């Protein structure tokens, strides 16, 4: 009898890969974002099967729920319209994708080789529940937490500054 978790892992992994593939090949930004959300949800399931319920939840809440929403906001602000679709079609035409695909394929093959050659692996599945994560965060990784908060502050300030409306009579400098 196959374990339910393994089953879930493989199905969710397949869904994630397929939806990611679809996400990068769409012509309309919103479509891509939707596929991305699907991919993130699938990855959340993967995390759960690996015994990491906290990051599974965080993946959904923060990644799919905040970051992708940010993307959606920006797409709405840009208000690109239908000619964007035609543009994309042109840009993706022909051999625009041969080179990237080959490069990525090579890189992937190398990485898989690196992973596989090390030998038989121990199985995953050690559950590390939120309590353990919380204790680790407040303990050994305290400095990391502080640093990431400073990082977020920096990003906040930067985004505020960059998002200001352009001055009327001066040259806009990014």
């Amino acid at each position, binding site marked *: 009898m196959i374990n339910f978790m393994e089953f879930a892992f493989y199905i969710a992994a397949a869904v994630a890969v397929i939806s990611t593939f679809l996400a990068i090949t769409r012509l309309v930004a919103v479509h891509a974002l939707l596929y991305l959300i699907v991919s993130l949800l699938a990855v959340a399931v993967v995390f759960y099967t690996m015994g990491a319920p906290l990051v599974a939840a965080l993946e959904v809440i923060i990644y799919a729920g905040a970051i992708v929403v940010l993307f959606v906001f920006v797409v709405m602000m840009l208000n690109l319209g239908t000619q964007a679709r035609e543009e994309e079609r042109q840009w993706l035409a022909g051999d625009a994708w041969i080179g990237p695909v080959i*490069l990525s394929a090579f890189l992937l093959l190398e990485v898989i080789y*690196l992973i596989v050659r090390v030998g038989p692996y121990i199985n995953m599945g050690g559950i590390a529940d939120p309590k353990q994560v919380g204790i680790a965060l407040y303990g050994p990784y305290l400095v990391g937490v502080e640093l990431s908060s400073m990082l977020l502050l920096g990003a906040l300030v930067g985004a505020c500054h960059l998002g200001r409306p352009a001055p009327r009579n001066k040259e806009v400098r990014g």
Partner: protein
Amino acid sequence: MLELLWLVPAIPFASALLLAVLRFSRKAVAWIAVGSIAASSIVSLLVTVSYLLAPPATNSYTQVLWRWFDVGGLHPDIALYLDPLSLIMVAVVAFVSFLIHLYSTEFMIKDEGYARFFAYMNLFVASMLTLLLADNLLLLYLGWEGVGLCSYLLIGFWYRDAENGLAGRKAFIVTRVGDTALVIGLFLLFYELGTLNIQELMQRASQHWPIGSAAATTAALLLLGGAVGKSAQLPLQTWLPDAMAGPTPVSALIHAATMVTAGVYLIARTHILFSLAPQAQFAIAVIGAATLLMAGFSALTQWDLKRVLAYSTISQIGYMFLALGVGAWPAAIFHFMTHAFFKALLFLGAGIVIQSLGEEHNIFRMGGLRKQLPIAFWTFLIAGLSLAGLPLVTAGAFSKDWILWGALSATHGSAALWAVALVGVLLTSLYTFRMIFLVFFGQAQAKVTRRPGNAMYIPCLVLALLSIVAGYVQGPFARFLDTVLPWNAGVIHAAPITEITSEGIAALVFLLGAYVAYILFLRKPAYAVMLGSSSAGGALHRFWLSDWGMDWLYDRLFVRPLVWLAQVNKNDFIDAFYAGVARINEIAWSVLSRTETGKLRWYAAGIAAGSIVFIAVVLFL
């Protein structure tokens, strides 16, 4: 006092260095330059006096300064050797240089290269004095090269005009041919005899080499080659007329009084070697005789005042070579001394004339200057008479008569050589008086725009005096030199006529030449024009004017093939190699610069590709 000898070349060296390195005002430059030569002259005078009052035991004084190097059995010293020969030559060179420097302070006053000029001149004097005082042939060669360098620098002094640079290069290259022969001669001498110290060399040569041996003759001929180059004799005389492109004081000092006599000095110094090689000595006489004739004919046709004097110099040095060739060594040196005085004076006078007329060189456009430049006229006349040989009064007559007598009666003399020398006297008289009549007599055609000052007149007056009285010391001169340069090292040839008769005939020839020149150029110039415009006359005139076609010959024989060769080899493979290296770099640049597109995705792809390669290297290598 003799220990001060080293100061004689050292002071001009030091002042040349000073003038080259530091900046001074014009006045300071003049004082330093002339002062250094004056100091050198004074020291040489002191040395002369102390030598005369208390001659050293071996009739020579050697001052060793330091050992130059010691390699493979060759250990030349920087050493100065003083004996009657070098004493006389140093005294003359130092004094005449001093006068010419004095003259130049005013002559070159308007030139922007004032300090450079005097630096070069001082360096020249220093090199010449080193050459004269050298104890061994290597040090002599050092001075030899030094004077060659300074000659080149000073001929091309006004370098902005390409012609002057060309003249300088020609001088350097032609004398280079002679220098190469000299160096090979030095190699041979060292190889055979094991030393380059002149005195030891002469001793060993006379011990080891029998008279007429091949080694002696070869070495002598090679040294002769060097002398021929430096002294502008046949066949290497083509550079001297073009060397007149330099400033007149340069022509006076280097190409009349001093450098061109370096060859004469070399042969006189090593005369023992030449005595061992009679064929070489005969060659000297033949070269001297041929040159004095050729140059005499060429001087007759020149229209540029300085070129007349240049050919005259070549001709007079031919006389010195003739004297050396027949064995009349002291006569050659005596003629050198008188020639230094009157030829330098002729050049200085020519400089005054040229500058006063606003750089006019063509004697056919001058005339009547004896009223406008009287001092220049009288000094020039005295020098010209000395050159042509006015008997009893002028020094040149004494020295020339001595040479004529030697050509007839000395060990290797003969009537033929004497006759050639006599024809030379006729030619000399002719072209000298032609020059004087055309420049100073007749109708005035050009106006005098600038008058020289005292600094230019005083040297002329002093030299004029010397051109007269220097002849009277002939007797003491011969006795003084006797220890070093004996007259007639062997049997005195029984001459068909006495010395007085020879002198008388020379005087008559002199007057004949003067009279013919008077007729042709003063009384009836139409005759000269008629002679020149006849077909034979015209052809001869052009032939002599072009130095007997030698420039044309050398151009066809040597210059053109070399230039053609250089052109053919313009893109040779070595150049192609270097150009190829540059080209490869260019190609690499153009290829690599295409990777700098500025596009974001391109750079990201670059990172991806790089990481692939990196991981592959780590995995598989």
